[in-house]
Structures are given as C-alpha cells and as structure tokens.
C-alpha cells in the first residue's frame, strides 16, 4: 500500500467513533480519490459486520440450576429465615409448638422437687403436707411430688401431682380432688390449667371493661 499509514489510523479512529471532524473530512476526501484505501476501509467494515453477525447464542438449559447446585452451601440461618418467610403460618405454629413443648418439659423437670401451695395453716412434715384436724384451709391446694394428709377441712380444690393423698374420716373438701401421676395426664392438667387461666383472664378483662 502506497498511502500513508495516517489514513489507516484515521479509519480506526473513525471505527472507534473517536475521530475529530477535520480528520474525518480528510479521510473522506482521501477515500474518494484512493481506491486502495477505499478497499481497505471496506474490508475493515466487512470484517466487523461479519463478527457482529454471529448470531447471539444463548446459555444452555439449566445453566443456572447447575451453578446453584455447585455453589458452596449457604448458612443454615438464612435457609431457615427464608422458609419462615415463605410459610408464615407454619412458622408461627411450629414456633408455638417448640415454645410450648419447651416450657412444659422445663417445668416438668423443674417440678421434680417437692412443693406445695402456700396456705398459712398447712403443716409440712418432710414430704407430707397435713391439713390439721379442726383447721379450715381456704383456697386450692396443690402438692407436687409429695403426700397430703387431710384431717381438717379444705375450702377449695385439692390436686396431688406425683404423690399420694390420705383422707381422714372427718376430712372435708369442698372442691374437686384430683391426682396426677403420668406425664401425659400432667400435660393435660397443665394445658387445662393454662386454658382456664387464660379464660379467667379474658373474663376478668371483660368484667373490668363493664
């Protein structure tokens, strides 16, 4: 090629859309007069057109799925969080169950020790609670992991959990007497009690609203 390299540089500047107006003008004029350079320019544009004409190809199917399978395992925490987000009701229910079971079990474990509800005239000897003869105990009595001997009068319910009860012939209990020994019974008792408390609470509220 006999023409100056400068024109080839101009061609590339033109193709990069990075050419000054004077250079562009100069290039145009030159291309009109020089067929070799015109051919060169045409070939450059043709090469570009060929490259651009290569059809846009798409990634293979399940490309994304394959990547997701190969990513390092994400933190458990996030997985759990997303599950909660997608199943709010199940999440609430399971959370409730977990807490419920937790609280019941923990109270069960806690309450392996002897305990008794406090009333002023109850007598406690080792693990035996005595309602003395001639005394009147007001309110409900709950005995856990211990015995109760009733010789007097109880104005209320008597509940024995994991224990035994003895009643003297003169004993009088105005409320219900119940014994709870098995864990399932105990759970049932617990739930009943909670529900009762809740109902009472609601009733109290309603009353206070009136």
């Amino acid at each position: 090629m006999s023409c100056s390299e400068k024109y080839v540089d101009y061609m590339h500047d033109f193709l990069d859309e990075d050419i000054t107006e004077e250079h562009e003008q100069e290039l145009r004029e030159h291309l009109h007069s020089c067929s070799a350079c015109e051919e060169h320019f045409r070939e450059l544009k043709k090469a570009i057109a060929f490259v651009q004409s290569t059809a846009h190809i798409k990634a293979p199917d399940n490309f994304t799925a394959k990547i997701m399978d190969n990513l390092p395992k994400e933190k458990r925490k996030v997985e759990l969080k997303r599950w909660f987000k997608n199943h709010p009701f199940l999440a609430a229910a399971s959370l409730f169950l977990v807490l419920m079971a937790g609280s019941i079990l923990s109270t069960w474990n806690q309450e392996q020790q002897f305990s008794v509800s406090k009333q002023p005239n109850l007598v406690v000897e080792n693990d035996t609670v005595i309602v003395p003869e001639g005394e009147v105990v007001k309110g409900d009595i709950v005995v856990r992991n211990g015995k109760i001997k009733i010789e007097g009068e109880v104005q209320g319910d008597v509940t024995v959990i994991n224990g035994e009860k003895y009643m003297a012939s003169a004993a009088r209990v105005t409320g219900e007497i119940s014994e709870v020994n098995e864990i399932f019974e105990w759970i049932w008792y617990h739930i009943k009690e909670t529900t009762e408390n809740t109902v009472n609470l609601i009733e109290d509220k309603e009353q206070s609203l009136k």
Partner: protein
Amino acid sequence: METIVKSRIAQVLKGDQNAYGEVVELYKDKVFQLCYRMLGNRHEAEDIAQEAFIRAYVNIQSFNLNKKFSSWIYRIATNLCIDRIRKKKPDYFLDAEVPGTEGLTMYSQIASDTALPEDELESLELQETVQKEISKLPDKYRSVIVLKYIEELSLNEISEILDLPLGTVKTRIHRGREALRQQLRNV
C-alpha cells in the same frame, strides 16, 4: 438493571443464595456468549462460564458495590478464558479424544480445508467460519474484539474490565481489526 442487580447482591452478601440465582439469570447469556466466542467450543464455554459465576459468588465480598457487576463478571470470565486458552496450547493434539465423547478425535473438529464457493455458504457455515477466524486471533486481540463487537461494550468499559489503559485497548482493537480484515477479506 444495575439497581436490581445491586439489591440482589446486597441480599447475596447477607447470605441469601437464591438471590444469586436471579443475578445468574440476568447475565448467563452474555457471559456464555463471551466464553463461547473466546473459546470456540460450547462445551468448554459452558464449563468456564459456570466457573466464572461460581468464582464471582465465592468472592462476592470483594465486589465493589459502586461498580458495575457486569464489568466484574466479564473480567472474571475473560481471565478464565485466557487462562484456558494458554493452558490448552501445549496439549492440543489432533489425535486426542475430544473430552466427553467416545472415539471422536480432534480431527473431526477441523473443518475441511477446501474453501467453499461463496454462494454455497449458508449462514450457519458463515458463522462457523467467522468463529474460526475469531479463534485464530491471539488471545489479547481476541478478548478486546469479542468485548467490543459481540458484547458491544464501550472502550472505557473494556479498559476497566481488562484493567488496561485506554490507549492499549485501542491499539489492540486496531490490530485485531486489521488481523480480521486479512483473514476475512476473501470470505
């Protein structure tokens, strides 16, 4: 699009893997195309494109949220392609079995060398020819040409992706274009 990508990446940074799936969906075709044009082989292109996305995920902590994700993923993919091209060179034997096939050697990968008359060139064959010519370019010219004319990126973006001064990018594009002109002038 960049804003969507950024919010997804913020989620990925918090550890949400599914958000990354959406990012992959947005860029998979472009990245796969880049790899295919660089390597000239679908199988390898898929390998490298997958690898690029996995690397991007693993190193997502080092991604600067103020920059374009596309530039970042292109950069990872381009570098992986160049590595692959360089590694491939010494063990490129024609009698070697094509990976993933049985009994198919590299001989079958070469088009017959008798040039077809121009009017017989179907569009598909023309594309194969063009792809073959792109594959013949030295890797440093190939990457700029692919980024410029197939991914249609600006010179500035290319210079950012390849971490090269703008002047170097221009020179490489000029040389790449000249080389293609020589190779494709008789097609």
